């Protein structure tokens, strides 16, 4: 299966990159843009066919390495 992990700073954590991108978009005339957040996507193949097992494994990866849960939240998609 293909795993896609999206990692974002938690809502209460200041995302300075998001703010910079937001002000750049405003500067280009997109005045209706608000609350920009910059995150990252990590994709990989996982040799697993059972969805439940796959999800548990990717969750463990997120907790151990892919996200720092002190400041970041993550979302897992499996395909």
């Amino acid at each position, binding site marked *: 299966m293909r795993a896609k992990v999206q990692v974002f700073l938690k809502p209460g954590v200041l995302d*300075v990159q998001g703010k910079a991108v937001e002000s750049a978009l405003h500067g280009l005339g997109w005045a209706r843009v608000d609350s920009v957040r910059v995150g990252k996507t990590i994709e990989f193949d996982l040799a697993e066919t059972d969805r439940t097992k796959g999800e548990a494994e990717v969750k463990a990866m997120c907790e151990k390495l892919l996200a720092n849960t002190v400041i970041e939240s993550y979302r897992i998609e499996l395909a």
Partner: protein
Amino acid sequence: MKAAVIVFPGSNCDRDCKVAIERSTGAGVDMVWHGETQLPSGLDLIVLPGGFSYGDYLRCGAMAALSPVMAEVKAAAERGVAVVGICNGFQVLVEAQMLPGALLRNESLKYVCKSVDLEITNSQTRFTAGYGQRRQATMTVGNAEGNFFADAETLARIEGNGQVVFRYLDNPNGSTGNIAGIINTRGNVLGMMPHPDRAFEAELGSADGAILFQSALASA
């Protein structure tokens, strides 16, 4: 007296730390590669140096925190050995969950490299006892991710416990509570963004960093 500096791929202040400790304390300093599964015996101080371990990939310090040697550093800290993480070393300590909080991108989004004046908020630690009645020290910072963050509950706890050891007098990076350095509850693991290793002789602009290494080893 014996100290070790851990060398990660991408560390760049490892030699500075070795020289700073040797010149300010006379202690012997071993350089320990991150892949080691054993530390030299009889260590009194372990330093995690500044730099860009693993190219700062994923998050600063995230990969280094999982290096083989870190299991040994954690075990040594649990035995009471003094551990100091400086700059990237501080990032490694929070990623390894040896210290609370996290370090975010600087509020300015810029790399900040300059001399900073620090308040010595807690001079009762094994790392700051040597400052005596002094309440201020000058060191330099050089970081892009030095913006200390902790949630409100964690912040209240570390403030209440006296775990904040250094504060910026003029905050260079947006750190919560002007926090520049914190210590664990046991008092033997210190993380700080300013570099004592770049302030150990007057020729460098300040010799205040030498006192930190002297204190750490005097209490060993």
